[in-house]
């Protein structure tokens, strides 16, 4: 079977702290894969190993392999920049660049990486990405405004458009609704269900309810260890591990 992401004995250390402990995980191509667990279990850290963004933290050390469509992205000859072109990311705090216009926020990844050849192609791709992110109708008349006046939910969809514009193979989402109101959250979850037809989405969430709503597969991470992984329905209805059961029923963190 073809996996989008596969980790082999993945370990992450922050100085002396061992935060991801020997995780073997297989994330299938297409669909929403939810990484869930209580705060501080290492899920955000793990997500950042999938595009090597973890390397921005001085003192973080990664051990083991992360395979992106079979290729180990931690082997010596892999350029992290090439990895990040293929793996888009959305963050916990909606972070469009406040000093760039809405248009430029979507276009920036394309411009930096020279992914389009002409202004027309850029225009088209920006429109396409904003439509994909279900934001086009709300911003098409003010593409040259700055994102300061957008709501939290709109900003987050702008960030999603920014990531989608580069046509990534995988989309990483780090608790994308943590700082968004319920209406915005519903919109983003709806969007996830549309996007999963074309993309592999790895969603980090601390809410089992959210995982149950949108995920096809889930993994439960606890204190840096992978406790359980499987199809969402199975893990929620018939968990194998006691900890998982406690977590999905809300008895844990």
């Amino acid at each position: 079977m073809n996996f989008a992401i596969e980790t082999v004995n993945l370990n992450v250390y922050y100085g002396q702290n061992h935060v991801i402990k020997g995780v073997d995980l297989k994330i299938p191509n297409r669909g929403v894969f939810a990484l869930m667990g209580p705060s501080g279990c290492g899920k955000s850290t793990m997500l950042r190993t999938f595009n090597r963004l973890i390397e921005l933290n001085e003192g973080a050390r990664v051990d083991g392999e992360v395979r992106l469509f079979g290729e180990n992205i931690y082997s010596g000859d892999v350029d992290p920049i090439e990895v990040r072109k293929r793996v888009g990311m959305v963050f916990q705090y909606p972070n469009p660049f406040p000093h760039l216009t809405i248009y430029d926020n979507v276009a920036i990844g394309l411009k930096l990486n020279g992914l389009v050849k002409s202004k027309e192609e850029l225009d088209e791709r920006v429109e396409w990405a904003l439509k994909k992110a279900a934001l086009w109708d709300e911003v098409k008349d003010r593409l040259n405004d700055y994102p300061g006046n957008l709501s939290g939910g709109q900003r987050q969809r702008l960030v999603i458009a920014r990531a989608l514009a580069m046509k990534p193979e995988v989309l990483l989402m780090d608790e994308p609704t943590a700082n968004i109101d319920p209406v915005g959250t519903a919109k983003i979850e709806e969007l996830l269900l549309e996007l999963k037809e074309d993309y592999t989405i790895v969603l980090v969430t601390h809410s089992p309810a959210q995982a149950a709503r949108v995920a096809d597969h889930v993994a439960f991470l606890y204190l840096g260890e992978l406790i359980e992984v499987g199809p969402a329905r199975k893990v929620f209805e018939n968990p194998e591990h006691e900890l998982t059961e406690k977590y999905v029923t809300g008895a844990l963190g």
Partner: protein
Amino acid sequence: MRKVESFKVATYPAVIIVFLLFAGMLFVYFTNALPALHRYGLDLYLENVWRAAEEPSEEVYGIAAAIWGSIYTSIIAILIALPLSVAYSVFVVDYAPKRLKNAFIILSDIMAGLPTIIYGIWGAFFLVPFLRDWIMKPLYDHLSFIPLFSYPPVGGYSYLSAGVLLAIMVTPFASAIIREAYNMVPFTYREAIYSLGATRYEATKILLGYIKPAIISGTILAFGRAVGETVAVSLVIGNTFNLTTALFAPGYTVSSLIANQFGNAFIYEYMTSTLFAAGLILFVIGLAVNVVGLKMLKRWERDVNI
């Protein structure tokens, strides 16, 4: 609530004193400048003459050369200091090894605090001959057909020397502001730009855009200091009434003019008054630069609201 109110009232005297001092200074400068302003009119600022005479009717003053020198040397200083301070800030925040980071910060803070006479003497004894032999002479020998380089660098005391010295002096100020702002860029924006496949250079470029207000503020502060700097500049600029864009020509600045002439100005009828009028123009330049800077910041705030 009453306690808070009384504290607020306790701050009033300080505010009033600051305001009165500013207004009072302006008043003193203006009244003392009046005789010269009255006699020479706007020519005082637009003409380049300096004829001191014991017979008051033969005295003529016009400080255009000094005004030009102040602005020209400050612009040279900013053109050099801005890239330097941005580069220094980026280096300290992004690249300096953790253990050395503080050492670099302390070093630049010390440089900001050094008495300016220290820079002045170093400038006169080392920087001027160095620039003359290694920068000005080669440029003059090979490129003197360019007007900027057309003045023979005999002594080395010049606009360029003053500009370079000023750049060295104001870089620590500008970089303190830029460095703090760059250091405070929320980590999430760093993550965002790198997640888009940016190289370090590209990421730095975008993040510097994010702190544009700090770069503007740093520039304004640096320009203000450069325009006002007195002792160090008067030691390296040559103190000559020139009015030219030639970089290697000696010149004057308003503050060095005041410092040089004030000692014997009392001998002449209108010279003291002229020097007060020169001081007044420094107020005006400072005000103008700040207004322009505030306008730029306002526009940014209106558009971006971070």
